[in-house]
């Protein structure tokens, strides 16, 4: 079970911030989320939306172990 987090507009679209999801890879997780929710899925596939696995931004697929933390983050707007 990976711990999945949504931030900013993604949390509003998903309707949740944190879920435990049974998955084996980032691509499998993303496919599952897109199938579940097309609106969220479209947003996740936009440029500037990234996955952060165990607090490191990733740009390729990665294997997910149980207890891994996967966050989906939209473009930032600090300060």
């Amino acid at each position, binding site marked *: 079970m990976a711990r999945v987090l949504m931030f900013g*507009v993604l949390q509003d679209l998903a309707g949740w911030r944190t879920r435990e999801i049974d998955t084996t890879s980032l691509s499998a997780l993303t496919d599952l989320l897109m199938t579940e929710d097309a609106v969220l899925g479209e947003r996740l596939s936009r440029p500037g939306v990234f996955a952060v696995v165990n607090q490191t931004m990733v740009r390729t697929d990665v294997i997910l172990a149980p207890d891994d933390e996967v*966050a989906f*983050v*939209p*473009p*930032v*707007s*600090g*300060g």
Partner: protein
Amino acid sequence: MVRLEDTPIDPGALLAEFVRNRGDAGAVVNFTGLTRDATSGQPVSRLTLDAYPGWTEKVMAELEAETRARFDVIDVLAVHRWGVVEVGQPIVFVAVAAVHRRSAFEAADFLMDQLKTHAPFWKKEDGPDGSRWIEARPEDHADAARWIQPE
């Protein structure tokens, strides 16, 4: 040092502490960002800043380290609010101490540009027409691009 705060930040107290006993530094430059009551002409009643505690501080610390590496500075402090921030309240406080003021100005300017475009914060504005999520402005990216050095 970087800090992520979920309660109001006090720029006066932060500056007072930062300038104390600085016989080594001649120059302290501070930037304080406040919630404005309007963005692009649209009234704003309050702001909600989302953050990712843990990762947000990690990225802020990387940006602080890059600032220290690029400029001749003695000390750097960056404090960022998250959560609900009322209009007129501080969102971000950056302070840089250096021997000479040119380095202090440039380092504070650089660090703010980096925070605006790279620090993991997501901003939602509440106004009369409801809420909307904001992204960094084109000007923020243009400001940050000023610092890109040729390879």
